[in-house]
């Protein structure tokens, strides 16, 4: 092989090299290594093999189950967001006056730094905060509560913050898909005298099925493993552990209780859950695809 041919053959790898090295370092190495570390006591490098002891500790830890339970409770957010976003997206799509303006305003929360959202919400919802003052002014004193200090209410408050921030993204996503529906179908439905709700259910929802599915899947993964910021800033797991979630479990175990092995076990659980969700959703989508054919 001539030198130039050799160079040509290896050329793509020069372009790809840096990206692949980074992905190996940040994604692939941790993905594999975390399995190994879940069997180690790594308080001191390089760690000693302790078999299943980390798993035993984690699987008998009440907080482990409680954290996952809270993540599952956060899944309830998803239908709420989807329903509101659907209605709003269709309203905006049907050329209501000021649609552009509303669109940019409703999307605004999504770009506000999560930390700022969290801090603003915690000052608004705390006992001597904005909400209670508002209720007092409106003469609704009986509704005044310690929203964040109450173990029953703290999780719904965090959920409210998540809905508030994530709604705009869902709206924009649905709106983008609505833009590609052919006008003819919608017009025909107008001529047939179909009402707004009929149009929503019979025309828009079927067209949006794939986007809704896609959004539901990424949101499930988000609610199970990507809400740390909200929790850490608003409640830090409290009150009375009522808002611990999987990520906080990892963070506290590894970086506050210095028990990295336990954190690694939870990470392994999350990896398995994420992969399972992706596989199930893939199968599910393929089945739908076959039925449609």
């Amino acid at each position, binding site marked *: 092989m001539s030198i130039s041919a050799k160079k040509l*053959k290896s050329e*793509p*790898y020069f*372009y*790809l090299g840096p*990206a692949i090295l*980074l*992905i190996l*370092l*940040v*994604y692939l*190495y*941790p*993905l594999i*290594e975390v399995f190994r*570390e879940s069997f180690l006591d*790594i308080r001191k490098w390089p760690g000693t093999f302790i078999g299943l002891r980390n798993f035993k500790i984690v699987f008998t830890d009440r907080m482990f189950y409680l954290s996952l339970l809270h993540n599952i409770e956060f899944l309830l957010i998803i239908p709420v967001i989807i329903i509101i976003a659907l*209605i*709003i997206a269709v309203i905006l799509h049907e050329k*209501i006056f000021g649609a552009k303006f*509303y669109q940019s305003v*409703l*999307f*605004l*929360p999504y*770009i*506000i*730094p*999560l*930390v*700022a959202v969290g*801090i*603003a919400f*915690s*000052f*608004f919802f705390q006992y001597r905060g*904005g909400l209670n*003052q*508002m209720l007092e002014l409106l003469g609704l004193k009986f509704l005044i509560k310690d929203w964040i200090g109450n173990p029953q209410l703290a999780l719904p408050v965090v959920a409210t913050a998540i809905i*508030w921030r994530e709604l705009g*993204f869902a709206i924009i*996503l649905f709106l*983008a*898909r609505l833009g590609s529906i052919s006008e003819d179908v919608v017009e025909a439905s107008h001529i047939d005298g179909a*009402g707004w709700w009929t149009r929503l259910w019979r025309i828009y929802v079927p067209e949006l099925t794939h986007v809704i599915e896609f959004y539901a899947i*990424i949101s499930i*993964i988000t609610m199970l*493993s990507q809400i740390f*910021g909200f929790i*850490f*800033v608003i409640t830090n797991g409290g009150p009375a552990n009522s808002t611990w979630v999987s*990520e906080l479990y*990892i*963070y506290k175990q*590894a970086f506050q209780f210095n028990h*990295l092995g336990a954190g*690694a076990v939870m990470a392994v659980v999350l*990896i398995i859950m*994420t992969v399972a969700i*992706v596989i199930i959703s893939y199968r599910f989508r393929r089945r739908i695809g076959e039925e449609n054919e």
Partner: protein
Amino acid sequence: MNDEKRIKSNLKYRAVRWSSFTLKKIILILLAIISIYPLFFVVINSVKSKGDYNGNKIGFPKEIVWDAFRKVFLDQRFLRWFSNTVFLTIISVLICLIIASFAAFALSKMQFRGRRFILNSIISLMVMPVIIMIIPLFVLFGKLQLTNNYIGVILIYVGILMPFNIYLLYSYFVNVPQAILESARIDGCGNFQIFLRMMVPLSLSALMALLVVDVLWVWNELLIALIFMQKENMRTLMVGLTLFQGRFTSDVPVIMAGLTAGILPILILYLFTQKYFVKGLVAGSLKE
């Protein structure tokens, strides 16, 4: 009789139309207020005096006071956090865009063994949550002395953003017609020339969309900054603000001023590049 019926139904139709129209308007206006209010809450309370805030947390200030902002901008730590975030954001995003566009170019316009496999593997990594990588990276970076080190955090940021960036650029690059590239090749351009002279200029809007989305992500990032930058003078703005909150609970306007300063750069970016924001965030998910 028939006419009467028609008029009646027409009136009914109009009434329904009118009420559903106002209902829609009311829903939109309400939602818009809810979307803006927390932002309003932050900004409005940042220009109140401490006493004013305690008496009135939800409305306009009695008079506008800049004390809180003065305190924030005279705070050495705050300025340090702010510049740390600016520095990390600019460097990470630039490196990320360069590396990702090289990779996307190879994946979309070159033929080599394993191309499909590499592309699919990169895309499938996009769903992996950041938290699962934290422990092994922390252990490894501890050994390599990359914790409390800007290089360490930049490596992680660029790496995490890589799959999304490559995916988005790839889906853009494949649509650049092969014929244009072939004609350039006949004119004697090498791959690098083609990349620099054709792909990059033709994909400026995609690069711009990525730029704003990446900036948003790095600016707002909390978890990694919290764990990998624990030294006081290396903290990022978001970590600093979180700690600020604990320290200044008695002086809420100061916290709100800090938040305003943290929100403002992103807000300005959003107002000027809204189109790209939407494009970048949606494009990453719709195509498939």
